[in-house]
């Protein structure tokens, strides 16, 4: 047993951290937050130039095949910097969908471009503000043509291609769609986290190709994609949680009130100790899930749901109480507290809310655990 990342994996993490320290400070995040940019194109290009979008893609498809453990650590760094890039949509979702279910031809044609960043991918599922369910998918594919709309798609305004959940002749399926094609119209949306591009997409007779060959199993396939992506998102979440906790601790050490640093008051100390505990539990669950993801272990569904639920809890707590530690200053636009608060709430809902993941967890729980 060895419960730690390798030196090579940590090296990739450190290189990613150096890139983002230089290229992705809060000024860059605020360019997107305040609408002067749709996403941080320079950061995305920097990540792709380092080959990071192809981290888990085999060399045969143009990737660097550095494995999922390395990808987990990259995700953690991206989360800590609240990076406004389509990395998660393109790498954790679209790429994983292709790797899991794509035909050889689909993989050959798309993966090299996703690996290099020449193409940005997205996953389009949600059609209204209710929990995703096979019953309420109204997008249809008939005779290879997609019609309908998606209510909110992460990175939908900047993606070049998407995996779209739609109802075909055999039931719900996943379809590959070129978002530059005729009949696609997109509207960028205002969300609780404007640092992540989110768009409504309307499809009118748009060419769509079934992902893989297994029609009518879209919901099960989506579960498979979500289980894998949940681990990577969870690493983004603990990265963000750590950054929010660090920010709270730094402020509590230097801010004085009543003639002493506010971090010396137990009311705040204990709050930050609880943030640390939540983060530590989530981090350890993420490590275990990383192992399950990297080895395709049978434990993956339970490990992924556990990492997802505890990382969501940790990020929500740390980002919320970071504002509390800062007092009034934490509620200003000027301080960065709200960047974490916004992102934590966005990530808590992408892939489905707490209720969905708690249910997945209990479904996967051995009854004799």
């Amino acid at each position, binding site marked *: *047993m*060895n*419960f*730690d*990342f*390798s030196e090579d994996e940590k090296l990739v993490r450190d290189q990613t951290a150096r890139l983002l320290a230089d290229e992705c400070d809060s000024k860059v995040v605020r360019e997107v937050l305040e609408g002067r940019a749709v996403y941080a194109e320079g950061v995305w290009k920097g990540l792709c130039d380092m080959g990071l979008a192809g981290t888990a893609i085999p060399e045969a498809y143009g990737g660097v095949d550095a494995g999922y*453990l390395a990808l987990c650590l990259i995700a953690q760094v991206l989360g800590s910097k609240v990076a406004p890039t389509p990395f998660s949509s393109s790498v954790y979702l679209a790429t994983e969908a292709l790797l899991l279910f794509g035909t050889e031809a689909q993989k050959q044609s798309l993966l090299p471009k996703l690996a290099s960043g020449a193409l940005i991918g997205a996953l389009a599922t949600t059609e209204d503000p209710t929990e995703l369910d096979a019953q309420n998918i109204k997008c249809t594919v008939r005779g290879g043509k997609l019609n309908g709309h998606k209510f909110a798609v992460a990175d939908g305004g900047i993606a070049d291609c998407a995996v779209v959940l739609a109802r075909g002749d055999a039931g719900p399926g996943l379809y590959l769609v070129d978002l530059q094609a005729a009949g696609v119209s997109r509207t960028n949306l205002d969300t609780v986290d404007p640092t992540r591009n989110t768009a409504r997409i309307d499809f009118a007779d748009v060419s769509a190709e079934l992902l893989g060959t297994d029609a009518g199993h879209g919901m099960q396939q989506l579960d498979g994609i979500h289980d894998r992506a949940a681990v990577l998102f969870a690493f983004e979440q603990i990265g963000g949680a750590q950054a929010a*906790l660090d920010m709270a*601790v730094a402020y*509590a*050490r230097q801010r004085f009130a009543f003639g*002493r*640093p506010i*971090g*010396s008051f*137990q009311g*705040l*100390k*204990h709050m*930050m*100790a*609880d943030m*640390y*505990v939540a983060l*530590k*539990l*989530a981090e*350890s*669950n993420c*490590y*275990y899930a*990383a*192992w399950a993801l*990297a080895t395709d272990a049978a434990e993956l569904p339970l490990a992924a*749901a*556990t990492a997802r*639920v*505890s990382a969501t*809890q940790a990020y929500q707590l740390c980002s919320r109480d970071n504002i509390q530690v800062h007092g009034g200053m934490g509620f200003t636009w000027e301080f960065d507290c709200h960047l974490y608060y916004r992102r934590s709430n966005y990530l808590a809902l992408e892939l489905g809310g707490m*209720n969905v*993941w*708690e*249910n997945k*967890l*209990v479904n996967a*729980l051995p*009854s*004799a*655990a």
Partner: protein
Amino acid sequence: MDFNDTAAEASFRTEARDWIQANAPKHLFAALSSSTFGGMNTGDEDPLQAAKKWQKKKAEAGWACLLWPKEYGGRAANPIQSVIWNQEEGVYGKLGGMFIIGQGMCGPTMMAFAGEDHKRRLLPKLASGEEVWCQLFSEPHGGSDLAGLRTRAEKEGDEWVINGQKIWTSGAQYSDYGILITRTDPTVAKHKGLTMFFLDMRSPGIEIRPIKQVNGQSGFNEVYFDNVRIPDSQRLGAVGDGWRVSLTTLMNERLAIGGSIATGFPELNSLVQSLPISRDKAVNDAGVRSRLADWYCKASGLRNTAARAISALSRGETPGPENSIGKLVAGGMMQDIAKYAMDLQGFGSVVNDPAIAEGNARFQAMLLRSPAVRIEGGTDQILRNIIAERVLGLPDDMRADKGLPFNRIPTGN
């Protein structure tokens, strides 16, 4: 990152499993398995004798105190082998409960500070369970504020004379030896005037009184010292260096109890698989599922955090204060789970008779014992202070006793 056994680990596991299979006291299996929290069930057998018998058998075959050097009765095994042993020992591991304080805390302190002749004479008997040790730290006036302790040690020739009172001493009533922290100089700041000793618990002048606890049991004692004499050769560390010596003990306390700490989750999970509510199994209720998921995340997070600590330990790193989270999370969680599990059973769950209550009254036992988990070995509040100050680096609290000689610190009476 790899959760599977290496070839060497797998062969160690087989060796351990085979030995346990051939030697374990199987007649105790059913009784031990039905033990509830805070009480060990050994059926008709005396618990202390049953525990000593198993420990002796293990020691003779080299399966006691696996991490200790061989000359002190151990196996010189590595931390992962020790974890594998614990997994394989399973329910029989409960028999080791009476030795945890001695082997987990007193032993390492002796190893670091006692003279070689004492170590060779005493540690093998501690490892084999022939002699039981206790830890005499807490006092009525020195609990969370441990360094505020008042038990005096005064030098007379080659001996020290001890007067005062300790409290919350687990197992004092059946202990042969103890490690004792005392105040040797009340005129200097409180952390500076302390000195540590070990002593024979049958020394004249020691009186032991059991404390009746909330759950009706008496695992803890008050220990009174009336002119008890200890040879200077039984001093651990320098005079005035007792605080530093005690930190060795307390650091090992975290290790001794951190990894395997009970949460109540497996019991709750087994309950909800069959318990009916609203004409369905409880596990199908949305509210129950949400609680179950949350608690599973915590239990699993603790297990995985312990696994990380063991990996760090096997790389030669010292486990730090971050391992304080184990007891902090598990204590409150068990209390909540006990209350919730009883709530799901309705009014009938007020019955605390193991003969008729669900699962030998396992949740009732947790309800009535778990408050102590949140206090013993560092209260929830002290643990949060430790995390805040020593892990996160937040400033120390303002202290009214800072820099004052011990005998000038306000006492409130």
